């Protein structure tokens, strides 16, 4: 399973390096969303206060594009069918695609966080660094796992472009809430303290475990006929 996961992840990341969809399309899209938020909230104090939530909202919107892209490369020339036909371990496919998606999300989130600090004057404090890193790792894993699972579910369905947001966004609500609260605690937004954030990291960890195990088991039957 791990050998297949490594193979799929390497293939997906190589395709991304060649096509540069993340760098040329998803990153600019996410940056534009951040700028639009700044226009919409027009007051510095408000933007500063909601900056963590805006970072994660922009991440979720970009996640939809990344997931669509991740499965578009599989379905374009029937590769999903070929993978099933070749008896490639579906659990390995699931983990491999989730790893590649997590790597792309990580780059995206770094850019978004940097944009929030520059654009929204969000404060960054060293005491919250461990919490901030842990939150980003846990939330990224959670989003990548659930994105891959639902991407696989929607990939073979007609109208998948509109179906995916409908399925995915309600499911990732716990990640949005948990990651936003933990990031607020890490950055000290609105007087929050670092200790407040760890319980939210706990929620994110449970989410990761749930979708990690569930996705690994369910992905095979999901992509079967």
């Amino acid at each position, binding site marked *: 399973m791990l050998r297949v996961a490594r193979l799929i992840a390497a*293939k997906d990341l190589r395709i991304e390096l060649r096509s540069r969809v993340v760098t040329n399309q998803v990153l600019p899209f996410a940056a534009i969303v951040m700028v639009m938020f700044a226009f919409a909230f027009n007051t510095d104090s408000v933007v500063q206060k909601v900056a963590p939530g805006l970072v994660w909202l922009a991440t979720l919107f970009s996640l939809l594009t990344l997931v669509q892209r991740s499965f578009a490369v599989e379905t374009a020339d*029937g590769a999903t069918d070929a993978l*099933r*036909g*070749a*008896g490639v371990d579906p659990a390995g496919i699931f983990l491999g695609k989730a790893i590649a998606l997590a790597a792309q999300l990580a780059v995206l989130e770094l850019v978004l966080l940097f944009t929030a600090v520059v654009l929204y004057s969000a404060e960054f404090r060293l005491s919250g660094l461990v919490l901030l890193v842990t939150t980003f790792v846990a939330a990224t894993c959670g989003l990548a796992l659930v994105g891959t699972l639902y991407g696989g579910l929607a990939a073979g369905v007609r109208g998948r472009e509109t179906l995916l947001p409908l399925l995915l966004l309600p499911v990732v609500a716990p990640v949005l809430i948990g990651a936003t609260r933990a990031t607020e605690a890490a950055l000290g937004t609105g007087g929050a303290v670092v200790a407040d954030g760890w319980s939210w990291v706990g929620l994110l960890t449970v989410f990761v475990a749930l979708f990690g195990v569930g996705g690994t088991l369910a992905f095979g039957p999901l992509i079967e006929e």
Partner: protein
Amino acid sequence: METVVHLSNAVAVLGRFPVLAGVDLEVAKGEIVLLQGPNGAGKTSLLRLCAGLLPLVRGEAIVLGCDLMTDRDGVRKRVGLLGHANGLYADLTVTENVRFWGSTVGASVAEVDAAMQRMGLAKRLAKVPVNRLSAGQRRRTALACLVARRAELWLLDEPHAGLDANGRDELDTTLREATNAGATIIVASHELERAGALATRLVEVVGGQTRERSL
């Protein structure tokens, strides 16, 4: 002669619709069997059943020694199905595609190189991205992937579709070489003249059932 495919009264359904209604088929190692019949007759379903992609509902089906009722995964690893799509990644080069599919069965670099050599892809086309290839070159790349995957039974659905005269000739040569190297091939095609010249046997598929015909 070693039997590669043995189907006896095999029944398969797609959703609630019966697509194969008691199929009988025997294919020996090294044969090229042509499946012919009208659209919707069950040719593609028969190929997908042999590939382990369509579940067997009733009857007996043994492919490469694996019982399709109990061991579909065992069949999948040893069979190569090439349908209307090629299963290639457009942004990757020919070599990267063949290497990827070879790696799914743990093929060595030498095996991948040999597969590309056999399909005439080793030199000029090796580093070309698949999205810049012609339809015939894509087909050859897909076949190289089957070789690299060590597929023992090739199941080809309309393999000549979309190819020009040169591409068709190249494909026929490739298929003959593959059988000489030990592969067994089942081809579903509407083109009796072209595929008939290639085949060793003709099987007609009508209404989800098979009938042996003379070439």
